[in-house]
């Protein structure tokens, strides 16, 4: 019989893990506070483990001698400074099985991955989650920094400023989706801004050469991974970052407090020391918040201003800062031919203005190595042709307003629904008002309502002028209708006079033929006089009617003339105001 040699199990750590796992299940609380406690527990378990090994060794010895007896674990009582449960109790709790269980049985447990060290590290990490070490060091090295941050958390005003900046960053998708695109700009598989441009272009021209542009180049082209075709429509569907940004932007910016803070933030970026909107000053964002709550038109105005800036200056431009090689940028829009000169977009903005206007600024290098910057815009429905010039001033772009189609006057406007100013088109569909900036606000009536609100927000006096104008237009139209009725009545009366006269003459002729010559002559003369008298009365009546008609017509013309003058005056003032505000916006200030 070979001599028995006890060998400490090589997988003792797994045993220990099993012990700990059991302990966790039994105790119901496996979390220890900090490394010291963990160390104490580990030490205690090592003792248990050691003792178990001794027990098993003793069992083996006695079994060898045929003296198998139940052995009570002889584990030392815990020391006073270590107020933990008794090891015997713990062992029972851990194992549940009687202590006499053989090592082999005991070891036949589900293996637990990881050793003590790894598990210890995990537990420490769980119980005491570490901050970024660098950040901690930073605050430790600069105690004032930590102090200021703690104070900052309690400052509502400071947090307001930061929240606005954060909202813009989040809205711009900083670091979330767009960041990935920028960082991987050399192989831009999903360049959002390019999508915008391309989708716009695709919707405009829908020319097959567009796809060809991307397929015609070497492996560096976007569609190299797309089997030679890049379906921007599909790409856009799968690219939810823009949609999310829009949703985020709208949901956040529609809140007055958030909006006011962001607006204030934008103003603070300028050198304009005054905080206000087109002449109306506010002491702080809170005042603006309250004002917007009470004035939806003002709220809408600020909302559109802020969201436009974010869309144009943050979302779009930031999303394309990189090195997007963009062959189609240098293509001939008419022929679709591609110039293989590499063009880098350095800015790309998208503006919604009723229809979408795509504005792109780009940079390219000619054969001599000279760098050029250029920009252009185009809009849907224009075949991709540049429609107007854009000016980039301090990162804010102004687009020339295109002439709007005249709006036909409604036949019977009422003061409650004064209709649309006729003849002048929609002068107010501008950079930050009505005009499709809000998707829901696309129909003409809402647009005009927005325009009127804008006029009121610009100057209350103009609102009065507009009301007067609407009243004059109403009066004017009523006068025109009366005039038309009068004209019709006059024409009818004149026609009737002619008929009556013809009848009388016919009757007189017949009477003359049937009487003696003298009598006939007298009768004829009398009849003629009567006819003439009757005719004169009717003619006089017709003339009177005509005079009245002419007078009314004259009044109507005067009223119309006055109305036109008022409209022109209002329009001029609005345009002047807009011009001033556009100029101010170009400098990011009001």
């Amino acid at each position: 019989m070979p001599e028995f040699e006890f060998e400490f199990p090589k997988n003792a750590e797994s045993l220990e893990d099993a012990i700990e796992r059991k302990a966790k299940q039994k105790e119901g609380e496996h979390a220890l506070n900090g490394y010291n406690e963990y160390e104490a527990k580990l030490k205690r378990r090592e003792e248990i483990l050691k003792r178990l090994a001794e027990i098993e060794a003793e069992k083996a010895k006695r079994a060898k001698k045929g003296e198998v007896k139940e052995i009570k674990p002889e584990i030392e009582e815990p020391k006073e400074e270590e107020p933990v449960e008794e090891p015997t109790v713990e062992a029972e709790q851990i194992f549940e099985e009687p202590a006499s269980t053989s090592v082999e049985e005991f070891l036949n447990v589900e293996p637990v991955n990881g050793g003590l060290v790894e598990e210890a590290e995990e537990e420490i990490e769980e119980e005491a989650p570490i901050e970024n070490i660098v950040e901690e060091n930073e605050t430790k090295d600069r105690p004032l920094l930590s102090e200021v941050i703690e104070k900052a958390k309690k400052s509502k005003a400071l947090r307001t400023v930061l929240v606005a900046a954060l909202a813009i960053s989040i809205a711009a998708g900083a670091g979330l989706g767009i960041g990935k695109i920028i960082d991987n700009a050399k192989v831009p598989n999903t360049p959002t801004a390019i999508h915008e441009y391309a989708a716009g272009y695709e919707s405009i021209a829908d020319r097959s050469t567009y796809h060809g542009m991307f397929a015609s180049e070497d492996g560096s082209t976007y569609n190299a991974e797309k089997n030679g075709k890049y379906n921007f429509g599909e790409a856009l569907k799968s690219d939810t970052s823009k949609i999310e940004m829009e949703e985020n932007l709208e949901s956040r910016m529609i809140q007055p407090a958030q909006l006011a803070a962001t607006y204030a933030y934008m103003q603070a970026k300028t050198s304009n020391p005054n905080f206000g909107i087109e002449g109306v000053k506010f002491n702080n964002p809170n005042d603006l918040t309250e004002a917007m709550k009470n004035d939806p038109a003002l709220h809408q105005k600020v909302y559109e201003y802020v969201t436009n800036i974010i869309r144009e200056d943050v979302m779009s431009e930031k999303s394309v800062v990189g090195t997007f090689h963009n062959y189609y940028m240098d293509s001939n829009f008419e022929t679709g031919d591609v110039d293989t000169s590499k063009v880098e977009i350095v800015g790309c903005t998208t503006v919604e203005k009723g229809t979408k206007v795509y504005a792109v600024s780009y940079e390219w290098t000619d054969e001599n190595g000279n760098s050029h910057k250029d920009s252009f815009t185009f809009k849907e429905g224009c075949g991709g042709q540049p429609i107007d010039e854009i000016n980039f001033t301090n990162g804010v772009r102004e687009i020339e307003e295109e002439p709007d189609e005249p709006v036909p006057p409604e036949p019977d406007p009422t003061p409650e629904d004064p209709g649309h100013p006729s003849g002048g088109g929609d002068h107010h569909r501008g950079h930050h008002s009505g005009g499709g900036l809000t998707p829901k606000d696309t129909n003409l009536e809402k647009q005009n309502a927005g325009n009127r609100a804008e006029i009121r927000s610009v100057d209350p006096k103009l609102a009065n002028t507009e009301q007067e104008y609407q009243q004059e237009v109403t009066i004017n139209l009523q006068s025109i209708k009366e005039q038309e009725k009068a004209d019709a009545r006059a024409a009818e009366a004149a026609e009737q006079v002619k008929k009556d006269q013809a009848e009388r003459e016919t009757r007189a002729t017949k009477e003359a033929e049937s009487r003696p010559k003298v009598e006939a002559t007298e009768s004829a003369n009398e009849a003629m006089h009567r006819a003439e008298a009757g005719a004169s009365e009717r003619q006089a009546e017709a003339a009177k009617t005509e005079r009245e008609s002419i007078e009314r017509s004259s009044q109507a013309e005067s009223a119309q003339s006055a109305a036109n003058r008022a409209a022109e005056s209002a329009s001029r003032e609005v345009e002047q105001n807009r011009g001033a505000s556009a100029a101010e916006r170009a400098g990011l200030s009001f």
Partner: protein
Amino acid sequence: MEQYFTEHDTLAKAIDALISQKYQNQPPANLSEIREENIRKLDNKISLKIFGSLSDEQLQKISSLLDDQENDPTVFQKFFKDAGVNLEQKTSEAIREFSNEFLGGENA
């Protein structure tokens, strides 16, 4: 309740976006714990990014403003402007850096 330097909801939106990118269809069991923890970390990162770019002198100045309980946001706006700190840029940088760390360098 823990106070955040910026705003919990806004931070949560960013973290949710990152979590969805990282875990996709397999959310971890302790999702809410991870979420809150990272919201707090991002908040810390933003605050460190912003204030960490200030000099000691500038820190003293803003500390004084905070001690005086300055309640006009425009004062702080002007402070950062004068200090040459672009808040928007700093927050974006912080988010981007955090994003890279959180996604395991995926964005790097």
